[in-house]
């Protein structure tokens, strides 16, 4: 099983690199770009929420901070549209990460249920600040970013696509590394039983905060790239309350806490979402369809596609032949749910 992995991965990588060359139509590359962007955000969110079991619903705040950081850098340094602003993306990510340190520290003082609520509340604080700090963000008037004027319409999406792919790959690599490190083991221990993990010497506070900051960093980069792509920023859109719901849904659909689940979820959901937005641009329909989809996924597939699939495969295997050692990748991540009653002791 393990031997085939690299080939599959390389094939996928080549396919994703070749994709825009094979389908150069701007309509398709735009959808592909957004899919990669959301896949990166979902992967980053999963590093924190999936591994620690703490569901954060305020990461949209770091998207907003990343995008505003990008816009402000471009404005203050008088950057022209082109390749140069891409270099600033990691810097915007660092800004988001820096902001997330005190925020994460405060939010993580609370435990699971309250934590979710605190992150939502903090998100609204930042949205409000984007409206109110007019000197910095220009308030509800919004900001514009430099437009790469010398890129033709056909070529425009290409650089964005590859930068998004790069962010996704780095985030995925980081996620993989965390998953297979002692640090990641500590995070999973926190998810399964925080008190016991602490008793066993895991520095739970520090572990959780680091994961929070790492995911905020990538999400901030996603925000910066997104801002540069759409070239304008408004508080209500840069700080979008739907964002967290969308990436959480992607992780849940693919399999929360698995390595590739978030990407699978993004590949399924983002094109669907783009299609619905195009088809039913009237806001109401779009929300209803999205909400219904969400309900269906959580009610009928609460564990996500990958864990359900791997359990099904394992069942088939064990009924046929002797089960040959667990697959060391994403499969065994899905331990019994942390809140399942009676499991912890």
């Amino acid at each position, binding site marked *: 099983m393990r031997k085939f992995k690299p080939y599959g991965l390389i094939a996928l990588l080549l396919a994703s690199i070749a994709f825009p060359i094979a389908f150069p139509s701007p309509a398709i590359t735009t959808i592909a770009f957004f899919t990669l962007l959301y896949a990166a955000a979902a992967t980053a969110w999963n590093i924190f929420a999936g591994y620690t079991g703490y569901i954060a619903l305020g990461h949209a705040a770091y998207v907003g901070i990343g995008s505003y950081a990008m816009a402000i850098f471009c404005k203050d340094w008088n950057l022209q549209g082109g390749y140069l602003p891409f270099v600033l993306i990691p810097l915007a990510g660092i800004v988001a990460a820096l902001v997330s340190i005190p925020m994460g520290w405060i939010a993580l003082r609370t435990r699971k249920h309250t934590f*979710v609520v605190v992150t*939502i509340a903090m998100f609204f604080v930042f949205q409000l600040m984007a409206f109110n700090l007019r000197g910095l963000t220009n308030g509800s008037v919004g900001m514009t970013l430099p437009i790469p004027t010398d890129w033709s319409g056909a070529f425009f999406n290409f650089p964005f696509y590859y930068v998004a792919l790069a962010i996704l790959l780095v985030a995925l690599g980081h996620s993989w590394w965390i998953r297979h490190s002692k640090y990641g083991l500590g995070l999973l221990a926190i998810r399964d039983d925080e008190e016991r993990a602490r008793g066993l010497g895991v520095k739970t506070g520090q572990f959780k905060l680091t994961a929070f900051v790492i995911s905020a960093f990538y999400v901030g980069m996603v925000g910066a790239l997104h801002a540069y792509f759409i070239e304008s920023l408004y508080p209500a859109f840069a700080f979008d309350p739907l964002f967290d719901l969308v990436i959480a849904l992607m992780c849940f659909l693919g399999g929360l806490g698995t390595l590739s689940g978030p990407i699978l979820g993004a590949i399924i959901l983002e094109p669907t979402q783009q299609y619905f937005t195009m088809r039913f641009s009237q806001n*109401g329909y779009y929300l209803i369809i999205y909400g219904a989809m969400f309900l269906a996924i959580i009610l009928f597939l609460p564990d996500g596609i990958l864990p359900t699939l791997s359990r099904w495969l394992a069942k088939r295997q064990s009924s046929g032949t002797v089960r040959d050692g667990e697959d060391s990748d994403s499969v065994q991540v899905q331990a019994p749910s942390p809140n399942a009653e009676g499991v912890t002791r």
Partner: protein
Amino acid sequence: MTLILDAFITGLLSGAIYALMASGLTLIFGVMDIINVGQGALVILGAYLSFFLQQHFHIDLFVGLLITMPTMFLLGVGLELAFIRPIKRNRTTLSILITFAISLIIEGLLSLVFTTNLVQMHAWYVDTSLRIGNFYLAWVYIFDFALSAVLLGALYIVLYRTKFGYALRASMQNRTAAELVGINVERISAITFGIGVALAAAGGMAYGATTTFNPNSLYDLISRLLVIIILGGMGSLRGALIAALGMLVIEDITSVVWSPIWANTVFFMLLVVVLVLRPQGLFGQLEGRKQ
């Protein structure tokens, strides 16, 4: 000085409206251990229902509550049966996502039916004011305050003076133990959810009568409600009541002394301060280890 006093009174009166909405939210959390992120949407739905009854059937806003509250109660029970009860594992987390989805659907339906134009309710008590010295106060604030007092009083009586209330408080303290002594916790949960949603209907009418709203207002509402129940301590009714009154008073005073723009922010800053000093909120209990 009189300005501050005026702000204090307005804050106290509008705080009562928030107390009404937040009490439903914190009650649901206390009994069922789930966070109903859809409360904001349900409040707006309640406001639109009252508005609809008034526009099309000329039913007074307060009288309309006799129709909207039972309707929303049934809606709440229905939502609980259809979407909350089927969740078997990881209830708290999944319930947040589910109620968020419900909130989206409600927002979508409301924008379809009523569009996103801002709505303003009219009635004699909304449009005329009571004059106290140099200070004008719309009658609706006083009526809303009375409504909150009556409903919260009724809730208190139900919780502390009836057998159902004893069962409900037992489920709040310990779900499993309540089940063991023969309380039908599932039934209590459904009814609690219904009560929470019915309170949202009343809160929605009270809210809608004091301000303009559209389906998007739910985001502003839910963020404030969440802050209120965190501050009060999740699951504490008394905490929600005090936090709602306190927050709104502080907000209104800030907007007078400093600037209305920053009033909201002060609201959230307080949250940060309280969380640093007292993570469990003002009246909350530290979460022990759940078995």
